[in-house]
């Protein structure tokens, strides 16, 4: 019962836990209207915000790099807020969606979902080498598969069919009772669960206990095997190839819907050896450049954009408790630099398009 009691009265945001105490999430708002969202549960606030404005839409999909600030100060803002402000002056609307460790497979289905609801003019897509190791769709996005039109479009691509096969019968609400779909027991179980959760905070907080347990196991593993953010992580070929397929599918979908695309290699901490096998990293960059070139998509390499002093440290990911180098999230000044670089590229892209 210790695990259960240990979490009494503690509110744990697991995404935040993964970032560490030194790094904080900031989902930007403009005049109180959300312009940076994460998952489907909050997507409507961003979508509604745009629909009231209705100017040309620039959509930025990304991972935690675009919503997290290292060593955040009170007045700090993310690149999303800066870019939204800049584009507002030219009557354009800048909006972002990001999730921690988001893979290109997740970007693909989220892009399909947003295209259904928003007239996207430009898509900005960061390509993150770390996230090429990721696969699968998080439960918070799983409801997308319930949309028959999106499912039908996904079924036209190889990677879409793979994702449908793995997730087609899942939705976020039923995730905890997936085995009971459409049975009498589903209602009974839900009734029992809801009542128990109402009368017992221990029962209600079981997801937190599960998450805490996995986090502790993760830290223990890292401590026992000496794994830290500087440890070299190799490419996972299966996941990599599925993410490349998803990348191609995003570019194809964008072309079909006349969406202009800007892709970029994300900034990387360059004062220390990156936690990559450099041969694999260089091959990855070359492959992305080759795909974007063959698809006629604007692609920039922002690897060295953010200087060493704008990066920071993150809380320990092992049981030893020592701070560690953060290779993914930079400080507010880094966001400023990223916003300027993207703004420059986007303006150039918009001018180029307008001259066609």
């Amino acid at each position, binding site marked *: 019962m210790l695990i*259960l009691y240990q979490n009494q009265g503690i509110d744990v945001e697991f995404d935040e836990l993964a970032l560490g105490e030194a790094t904080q999430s900031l989902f930007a708002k403009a005049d109180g209207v959300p312009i940076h969202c994460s998952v489907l549960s909050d997507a409507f606030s961003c979508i509604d915000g745009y629909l009231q404005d209705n100017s040309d839409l620039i959509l930025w999909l990304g991972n935690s790099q675009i919503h997290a600030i290292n060593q955040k100060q009170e007045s700090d803002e993310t690149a999303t807020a800066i870019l939204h402000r800049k584009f507002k002056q030219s009557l354009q609307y800048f909006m972002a969606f990001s999730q921690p460790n988001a893979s290109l497979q997740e970007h693909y289905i989220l892009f399909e979902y947003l295209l259904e609801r928003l007239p996207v003019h430009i898509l900005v897509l960061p390509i993150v080498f770390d996230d090429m190791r990721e696969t699968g769709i998080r439960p918070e996005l799983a409801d997308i598969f319930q949309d028959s039109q999106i499912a039908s479009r996904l079924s036209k691509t190889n990677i879409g069919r793979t994702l449908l096969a793995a997730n087609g019968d899942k939705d976020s609400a039923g995730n905890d009772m997936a085995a009971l779909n459409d049975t009498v*027991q589903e209602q009974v*179980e839900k009734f029992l669960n809801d009542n128990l959760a109402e009368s017992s905070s221990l029962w209600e907080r079981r997801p937190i206990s599960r998450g805490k347990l996995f986090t502790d196991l993760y830290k223990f593993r890292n401590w026992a095997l000496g794994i830290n953010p500087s440890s070299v992580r190799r490419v996972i070929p299966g996941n990599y190839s599925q993410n490349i397929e998803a990348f191609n599918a995003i570019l194809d979908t964008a072309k079909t819907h006349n969406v202009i695309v800007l892709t970029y290699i994300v900034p990387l901490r360059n004062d220390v050896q990156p936690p990559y096998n450099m041969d694999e990293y260089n091959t990855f960059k070359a492959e992305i450049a080759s795909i974007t070139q063959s698809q006629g998509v604007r692609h920039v390499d922002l690897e060295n954009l953010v200087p060493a002093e704008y990066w920071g440290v993150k809380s320990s990911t092992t049981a030893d408790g020592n701070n560690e180098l953060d290779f993914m999230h930079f400080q507010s000044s880094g966001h400023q630099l990223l916003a300027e670089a993207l703004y420059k590229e986007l303006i150039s892209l918009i001018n180029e398009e307008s001259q066609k």
Partner: protein
Amino acid sequence: MIFNSLTYIIFLTIIVLLYWILPYRSRLFLILFVSLAFYGFWRIEFVPVMLLSTIVDYFVSLQIPKAKQKNKKKLLYASLFINFGLLFYFKYLIFFSENAIGLANLLGADLRPLTLNIILPLGISFYTFQTVSYTIDVYREHIKPEKDFILYACYVTFFPQLVAGPILRAAEVTDQLAHRPPFTLDNIALGLRRIIQGLFLKVVLADNIAPLVDAGFAMPVATMSALDVWTLAFLFGFQIYFDFSAYSHIAIGSAKLMGINFPENFDFPYLATSPRDFWRRWHISLSSWIRDYLYLPLAGVKVREHSVHGLSGAVQDNQKTKALFMTWAIMGLWHGANWTFLLWGIYHALVVYIYRLVKPSSHKLNTYISNVGGVIITLPVIMLAWVPFRAESLTATVGMWSKVVNPLAYTSLNMRENVYLVTAIILVGLFAAKWIQSLFKPSNTLTFFGETVAYAVMIPLIIVFLRPIAQFIYFQF
């Protein structure tokens, strides 16, 4: 109803209380009623299918002893026809029609695929085997037919074993149902322990291994290395073992709470010293069913009683071999209407066949060496068989197996590090569990202390992880 749910825990608590309160006749009615309710919680429309099978075998079995010899056989065939007819319709019609149409189209016909929407009733493979074995046992005069329909129906539908076994013989349970054993706290404690063990294996281990296995088998085969294939084969082997043995633990424990003993279904199968030994430890109730009602008759052996000693020497080798392959092909298809399951069955037949060939030479070895060597060879051979059991297609299976025999495919690890780590921990854990179990003797302080610690860890983990996120794998069979 799914065992790994709050609903089942509450359902079982109420049933057990009523069971010990009610008098004999009412108790049987209670078991029948709650067993049908248990089944109906999944899909009520399939209760009549199960009842049809139950009623047919009840009446056929009553008639068999009274009938003349030639009519006895006709009655038996009628029962087999109806039971296997239902099983064929629900489980195999789509598979056979798709393949027949595919074959016809290959030969030049232009047939459209049938659009059949048939849902497989839960547990049909299990209760069909149970009702069929009952009628065959009556036909063979191993048992007398049960005249009390309620008692007989309780045997077929008894909820703990209804959906995924153990596959019971009538002789094993009807007496226990008929004569309620006295209430003992030992039975309650033993039953609760088995249920806790089962829930732990299912909700803490099997359900948390599942995402790793799913992600692994979803990878393109071309990107897998031989070591990945081995790892996935082992990991799925562990998942299915935890999942299925969990069901058996909960089934045995639930019955025990009512004072009823079910036969054991698993006995550390991955520590088997030979393929034959594996099948004496894995899904024991199915293996013995297959042996008694399929293999021995196919091999031409007249079964006088439940066989425990295998085939007599009088049976010719070629008869044995033919029976072996036919039995395993059917066993494969029993698990699922797919070519991958057929391949799984044939693989096992081949493994047993090879074992028979090499077994005589193993007698020369020292027993210890033979046992240790047996485990080292048997374990990977058995694990590799899980590849077709889990893979999406024959193509994927062949692709994965071809990696294993390619020495050049052993140079990389292409999955997430956790997959290898978890597999290695479980492998070591299984051997350690057997070793620890051998240290504990009943009723000593060390055993008491060890069990207290184990349950103190398992119970909170079950509370934290209890979610019906996944059915038991064997539900699909």
